[in-house]
């Protein structure tokens, strides 16, 4: 169907050009707008990897840095290609995945026939219902601290049996509100991960709910946290813009 015989390009002057009818270009402000503080909430993914040998490895290590959708949206990759990708995650980005788990993870990922996740389950930033501590834990905490509350050796500390979790409520609240960086010692083991601040991601009720959940799981038997305590600690630490510096700061909060 080539050739101009069946059609014509009309090179006439166009009436009412698209550019002229398109929305007006933005106008620069004559005076600069005020610099207000900007606080946002980012939605969290609750997407899972499909069941199979290797899914547990993927859940333990991949979700630390990125949601599952990143993996599940990839084109089909061979086992060798996945091996190369996983090793890049380990060597370039420091993924704490043990070497012996590379092969089973690569085999698992290359064996997923249909990966697409058309509807990624997500934790809405705000929900009308009372906050669900378990759901918040799944979306916000589990990728690093793991579903069994044991964390990952050397990187992310356990929540199960951790005195930071089961000690004074105000201490656990302050950790969630402002995050932690640098070396932290838990039960004699040291960890070097980075925990972000959840002060803007979660409101007082949500922080109280997730901490109450964590303080009652995996053999923890600490009391629930009241949203009022979160509000008090939020105000008391409002000036803090950086995470707590591990043992150095947190020992003073005990």
């Amino acid at each position, binding site marked *: *169907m080539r*050739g*101009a015989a*069946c*059609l*014509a*390009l*009309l*090179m*006439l002057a*166009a009436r009412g*050009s698209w550019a002229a009818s*398109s929305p007006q270009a*933005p106008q*620069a*402000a004559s005076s600069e707008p005020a610099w*207000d*503080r*900007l*606080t*946002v909430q*980012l*939605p*969290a*993914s609750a997407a*899972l990897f499909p*069941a199979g040998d290797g899914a*547990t490895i993927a*859940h333990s290590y991949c979700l630390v*840095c*990125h*949601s599952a959708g*990143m993996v599940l*949206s*990839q*084109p089909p*990759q061979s086992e060798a290609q996945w091996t190369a990708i996983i090793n890049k995650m380990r060597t*370039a*980005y*420091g*993924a*704490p995945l043990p070497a012996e788990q590379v092969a089973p993870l690569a085999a698992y990922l290359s064996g997923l026939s249909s990966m*697409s996740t058309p*509807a*990624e*389950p*997500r934790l*809405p930033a705000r929900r009308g219902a009372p906050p669900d501590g*378990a759901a918040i834990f*799944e979306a916000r905490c*589990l990728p*690093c601290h793991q*579903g069994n509350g044991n964390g990952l050796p050397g*990187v992310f500390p356990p929540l199960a049996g951790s005195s930071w979790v089961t000690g004074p409520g105000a201490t656990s609240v302050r950790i969630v509100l402002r995050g932690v960086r640098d070396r932290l010692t838990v039960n004699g083991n040291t960890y*070097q*991960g*980075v925990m*972000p*601040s959840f002060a*803007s991601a979660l409101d007082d009720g949500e922080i109280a709910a997730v901490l109450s959940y964590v303080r009652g799981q995996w053999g923890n038997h600490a009391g629930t946290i009241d949203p009022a305590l979160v509000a008090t600690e939020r105000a008391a630490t409002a000036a803090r813009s950086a995470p707590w510096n591990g043992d150095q700061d947190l020992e003073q909060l005990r």
Partner: protein
Amino acid sequence: MRRRDFLANAGACGFAGLLGGFGRRAAAAAEIELPFTNGRRQIVSDFPQKGAMILQRTSPPLLETPFEVFDQGIFTPNERFYVRWHLANVPTDIDPASFRLRVHGHVRRPLSLSLEELVHGFEPFEMAAVNQCSGNSRGLFTPRVAGGEWANGAMGNALWRGVRLRDVLDRAGVAPNAVQVRFQGLDTGVIKETPNFMKSLTVDHCRDGEVMIAYQMNGAHLPLLNGFPLRLVVPGWFATYWIKMLESIEVLDAPDDNYWMSKAYLIPDTPGANVVPGQQGVRLVPINRMVPRSFFTNLKEGQSIAHGRALEVRGIAFGGDTGVARVSLSVDGGESWQDTRLGADRGTYGFRSWSSPLRFHAPGKQRLMVRCVNTSGVAQPRDANWNSGGYMRNVIESIGVNVT
């Protein structure tokens, strides 16, 4: 079944239950099928300061602009502008009162500038410029390559307002032995070993009077996910250099060999960054200047068009590292080309609209092609490039229509 139970029950519990649960939610969710294998994506509107976007990844966010947005004008609205973050810890609370931009390293006078000082202490500067992800259109590579699987929507054009980087560097006084300038934002990884995201440009490039520090985008503050409060704007260069939440400007006395310059975002040093899949021994260099592209915005692949009816075919183009010279349309498979009518020039580095009246006289399948030639004489290639990073795609776009 809940996510926390997965570790314990994955072996015993079938996945069907999970799918059933998710499937019910899927029915209500808007979806789009991007034109490649495993291309189904959700359309979401739950990211802050963002409208409906194609969800590529929730965390760290990768959001693609739905292509119909580009038919609405040559400036991409902030709430539809694509989003791309590398590291897991994206700050969500920015206090402009305490924010400081640091200029340090090999300078005579290190600076720590408040936003007020930056806005009022330097001459304002404005420029329209296209911000395009290095891997825009990666999903269209054949053979496919891993990475962010974008269609063509990882790009946008904005009117950036801010100050010239040159003016800020001159205030600090660049040392005579300086060779590069390194930029870093506020985002971080969550593992100590994850390299901070930093990119560098030569001192001469930084002082060209066009590279700028933007504090506004399309007449408003930048959305947080596009880099509030400050973003580096590097006109004509790929977006990997446009550091978001810009916090540190470090003048270096040696070429930057940090991971993001020496190991990532590298392209083959060949014309069009093009190699044969599997080709070995090719020199790699940091990705840099953009190349021309053009797109149809009011026609879709497979669209039906009635014959005999006059229509206007239109779209957008950009010249890459320079302006658009012309945009041409072919209706005969690329054998002959007719120049289209270009819209207003709103800036060398921005989108330019193009349009052309068109009428088909008989039914049948037709293939339309559009090609941009930039003011340096560089034309889009007829054949698609390939490289293992999925970078710099700019093949001539074509669309098949069904004339009825």
